[in-house]
């Protein structure tokens, strides 16, 4: 980490319904940085995202989460959002009764605590939707209701660009998208970095979404712990060799440790 710390996770243990998923995770993300969290399916990457965001179904049994130096481990979800933490959901939920546009506007107003000028808001929304190649009509449709998988993911990135969080966690935002959609989403993510200098924690097990981005650090998670930290070269390494190589490496280091 080259910059001042934004998110600092120390010894985090997380349990879901009596089963411990994270067994002591340490992770630090600095301001204005892009981090990648990789690892095979079912190792606890999404759990970490939920724990940072504050999902009450994920019980923290040990360790702590600091955000801008403040302990937020016990803070409710919405208050973490107010502090600037954002999660792009892997499976965004459908919520009838509120339009995408009204939802974003209300979220922005909650965040800033003041009313927005409708004209300014509409203008920015329209521009941002154009960047993401989203049809304008989606703004007045009920939140995610009947959206395709790709449109749901774009709507998440749209929310990120409009809300301008200090830390955005992208949970498998690229999964299930076709090549064109990944490129558009990836461009949106790049713009987020360029414009707001907010930090990113990108959870992925492919690397397609990273192509337009400069990666500052990469972390590999396996079975609920971070097994390796590195730079952008770690992403390339995994890209070429998969996680298999790492697994044997970590086993070796484990043996060394024992010996």
């Amino acid at each position: 980490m080259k910059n001042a710390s934004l998110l600092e996770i120390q010894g985090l243990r997380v349990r879901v319904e009596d089963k411990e998923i994270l067994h002591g995770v340490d992770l630090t993300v600095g301001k204005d940085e892009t981090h990648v969290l990789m690892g095979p399916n079912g190792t606890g990457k999404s759990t970490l995202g939920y724990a940072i965001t504050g999902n009450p179904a994920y019980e923290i049994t040990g360790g702590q989460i600091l955000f801008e130096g403040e302990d937020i481990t016990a803070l409710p979800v919405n208050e973490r959002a107010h502090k600037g933490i954002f999660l792009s959901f892997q499976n965004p939920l459908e919520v009838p009764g509120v339009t995408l546009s009204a939802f974003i506007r209300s979220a922005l107003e909650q965040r800033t605590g003041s009313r927005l000028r409708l004209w300014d808001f509409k203008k920015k929304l329209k521009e941002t939707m154009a960047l993401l190649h989203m049809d304008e009509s989606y703004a007045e449709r009920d939140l995610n209701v009947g959206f395709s998988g790709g449109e749901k993911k774009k709507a998440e990135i749209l929310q990120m660009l409009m809300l301008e969080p200090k830390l955005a966690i992208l949970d498998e935002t690229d999964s299930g998208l076709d090549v064109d959609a990944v490129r558009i989403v990836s461009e949106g993510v790049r713009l987020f970095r360029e414009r707001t200098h907010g930090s990113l924690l990108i959870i992925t097990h492919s690397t397609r979404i990273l192509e337009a981005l400069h990666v500052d650090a990469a972390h590999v998670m396996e079975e609920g712990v971070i097994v390796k930290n590195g730079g952008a070269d770690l992403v390339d390494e995994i890209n070429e060799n998969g996680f298999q190589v790492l697994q044997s490496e970590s086993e070796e280091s484990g043996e060394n440790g024992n010996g």
Partner: protein
Amino acid sequence: MADTKEKSYVEDIDRSVYDIRDEEHDAYRMQEGLTPAIVDQLSKEKNDPVWMQQFRLQSLQIYNEMPLPDWGPSIEGLDIDHIATYVRPNTKMQNDWKNVPQDIKDTFERLGIPKAERKSLAGVGAQYDSELVYHNVRDEVAAEGVVYTDMESALKGEYADMVHKYFMKLVTPHDHKFAALHGAVWSGGSFVYVPKGVHLSIPLQSYFRLNAKGAGQFEHTLIIVDEGASLHFIEGCSAPKYNVANLHAGCVELFVKKNAHLRYSTIENWSKNMYNLNTKRALVEEGGTIEWVSGSFGSHVGCLYPMSILKGDNSRMEFTGVTFAGAGQNLDTGAKVVHAGKNTSSYMNTRSISKSGGISTFRSSVVVEKNASGAKSSVSCQSLMLDSESRSDTIPAMDIRTKDASIGHEAKIGSISDDAVFYLMSRGMSEEDARALIVSGFADNVSKELPLEYAVEMNNLIRLEMKGSIG
């Protein structure tokens, strides 16, 4: 549209407007209970024509002979011997708002009634306790021959014969005990006649307010939409809360003539000491359409099952409803349809919400008579239970006597998804707001069908009900 919707759940609401009780300055309050002498007295007070006087006494006799229904929620807390059936406000009916007494005017102003008229209504009626205190219709609407008046005037004026011909012919006093009671003591309500081919582009509205403690309201609404005409009629109801039972046993009779179209919308927010035992029915002729939009939020006990008789060929009905039963409420709602003509269709789409021990029951009844070939019917009912102490039941009944009917029925019961609450909160929304938003969204089948002001009011009511529902 979206912005106003959003406003409706961000803004605070004030429950107190519904709860303010006015001091009673009644000109006349009938003694409590029900005897031929009291009914006779009521008839005299109202200057009924002779036939109506007899009709009331016959209805009373039917009432006395008829047993209480042996199904539905308990109405044990209702003692008709202690209900004042007639309370006349201290004013004559006015058609100029300025002349309505100040306290009554204040009540309606708080509820936004005359303001709504200025903005978006073709005509307004306001009933306070047993009598209409205000009735007005826009000149251009009256010029098209549309009649919108209180039932008392209709009974004696130019349309006396029409009223005599239709009054309680669709819902007769023999229908059930409370229909008989209504026949005996009805007072107030509106009469609407839309002549052939006249289309009202903006709605008419009647607002019913029951202020008097321990009283009953028995208004009668009679609407005739003549051939090829169309109308949207809205009724709103509210009352302050008292610790004794109040009774509402209104009756609505709707006649939809050939190729006519009627939409009848209701937002009911009676206080939670009210027994709302209301009867509504529509008779639809060839090619005609009845659309019911119904939001039931108030009352201690409610029984409401608007019925549509699709008499003419190619006639159709749609029923869109939402019922919200909170603590201490037992709301038994639903809809009935009889397919009698050929190629008729019915569509019911309802949502019920129960919370804090509230009981919500949805009953549907679909009858297809043996000559009603080509009938189509679809019933969809979704329920949302907000906690484990609440209750929700769906009771469908079908009686199909043709071979070619197309009938669908779907019922779903669920609870608020924790994932959805988490999703909304992750964007900064409080838990209370997130839950209120999900519940409003669940009920948006109805709010989408209402004029904007009413949709906002409905969302406010939902938000009000959801307040303090966490923990």
